[in-house]
């Protein structure tokens, strides 16, 4: 539970009075770069203290909340350079000592196997691909089956199969667990998250389920076919969510008020349309 969290760096506000009630399930924090996602994750992970507001955990506050959070958190920071000489197995062994747990070698190997790392479990991380290193970093967050798992941009550098492996791991967390992921790709998190939290310029713009977010965009999404020579002017006037070459022109998908285009027709919004609409001009920066 986050109550009225604010954070500034060198006087520049990064988070403004964020209040969130997070219980269980998969929560995705969405927002463009610089929206405050990573700062919020670092506060949730107790790595960073907020300037204002408080973090509560199991109705505990202050130091007790910090200790309670740390005893049940698995955390993947956004940028993590792992010691290159460690093996994935060695990394899990090291993190086991940090988490003060007793995790058998079989359980650690099982975790690596779930992420497809069993064949490279004893190879130094420096010899692995970026994706495999990221997966090893993901694995350490799931070590000991924590009940609070924080994954900051977990999919960075992962290919489709590797992402699917992480999705499976997320879906298999024990009941009552809370998984918080950050992303700036709504289509990705739409597959796994029950709750979406959208940040923009450090402010909370939406918190709820994907269907509610999509509903907000009802009647605000349009498609039209245009001659190729009109595409550029349309891109400047309207916020496009998709642009595709079709026979003899371009098909455009727009979000916002009804466009002044002859054959524009309303269409069912997707999560990406709704996100684009909510972000307004923030994504154009």
């Amino acid at each position, binding site marked *: 539970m986050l109550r009225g969290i604010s954070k500034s760096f060198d006087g520049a506000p990064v988070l403004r009075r964020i209040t969130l009630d997070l219980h269980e399930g998969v929560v995705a924090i969405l927002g463009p770069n610089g929206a405050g996602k990573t700062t919020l994750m670092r506060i949730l992970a107790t790595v960073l203290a907020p300037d204002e507001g408080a973090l509560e955990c199991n109705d505990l506050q202050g130091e007790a909340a910090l200790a309670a959070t*740390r*005893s049940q958190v698995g*955390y993947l920071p956004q940028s*993590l*350079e792992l010691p290159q000489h460690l093996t994935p197995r*060695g990394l899990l*062994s090291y993190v086991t*000592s940090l988490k003060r747990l007793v995790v058998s070698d079989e*359980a650690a190997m099982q975790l690596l196997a779930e992420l497809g790392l069993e064949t490279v479990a004893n190879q130094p991380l420096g010899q692995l691909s970026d994706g495999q290193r990221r997966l090893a970093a993901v694995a350490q967050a799931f070590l000991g089956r924590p009940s609070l798992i924080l994954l900051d941009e977990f999919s960075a550098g992962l290919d489709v199969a590797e992402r699917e492996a992480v999705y499976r791991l997320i879906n298999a967390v024990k009941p009552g667990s809370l998984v918080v992921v950050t992303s700036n790709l709504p289509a990705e998190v739409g597959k796994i998250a029950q709750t979406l939290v959208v940040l923009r310029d450090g402010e909370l713009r939406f918190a709820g389920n994907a269907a509610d977010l999509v509903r907000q965009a009802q009647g605000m999404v349009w498609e039209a076919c245009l001659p190729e020579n009109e595409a550029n002017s349309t891109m400047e006037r309207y916020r496009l969510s998709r642009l595709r070459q079709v026979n003899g022109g371009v098909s455009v998908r727009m979000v916002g008020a009804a466009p002044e285009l002859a054959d524009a027709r309303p269409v069912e919004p997707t999560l990406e349309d709704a996100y684009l609409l909510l972000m307004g001009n923030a994504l154009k920066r």
Partner: protein
Amino acid sequence: MNDESGQKYPAKPDDFPEMEAWERDMADVLKKSEPPPLAPEKMEALLATLRPMVAARREESTPNLSKTAGRMDFGEFIRLVRGQASLLERPFWMVMGLIMAGNLALLASNILQPLITTLFLALPLVGGISIVYSLHGSRGGMWEIEQASPAGLQRIFASRLTLMFVLQLLLALPVLVSYGAQAGVLVLARMVLAWLAPTVALSGMILFLFSYWGEWPSVGITVLVWGSLILFGASRAGFIGFAEMVLARIVFNPLLPLLAVLGLAAGLAFGALGLRRLASGRSSWS
């Protein structure tokens, strides 16, 4: 949902009243009936099958909060120290091994034995630089995982310092034992002070400097300070065979106990300040 014939399946369990009644009857029968007695060997086989499953489930269950949030016992601390050792890269172990081999080789050689004192005078510097090196593992975001862990940065730093202290002690031990055996306990005690105080003082200083300016400035300043002191002593000793003279002056200085206490206190104070700054996340690496 439709099957191939187009017939619509009932969608809810309520649409099967007969089935519900049958399930209720079956449940009543099962509740009333007693399970047949199981032969001991079958019971044992069943338990043998179930035990690993129960153990695996237990392992997967929520970590014990009271354990992970409470005091750390000695065994856990040793595991933490072992974890820190795994972060040290091969070149570090090679350098430590070389120093140790050099130590032993010089002690074994009658001709080169005087050089051992030069090595001994360099050990506090090796100790300080090792401390900075041991912080390598926390770079690149690892410190975030460490800080978010139940162990916490302070315990992790404590385990790192413990590991480094033990390694430095191992490096100094051959010389201390050798000289102690030759010159007696009093000289041994003075030599321990002559090694321990500068090691702690330089380690504290380097930690403090590291917390503000990072690796190279902290190492550079520490090398400069200790190097200048040794050169000063060497210049007074006339440079030839200076190490033995310097060491003798340190060990037999009447003010050694007082200077050692001051060195230890300053090292611990600077070290504590540096560690506090590192643990608060306001340091140069974060």
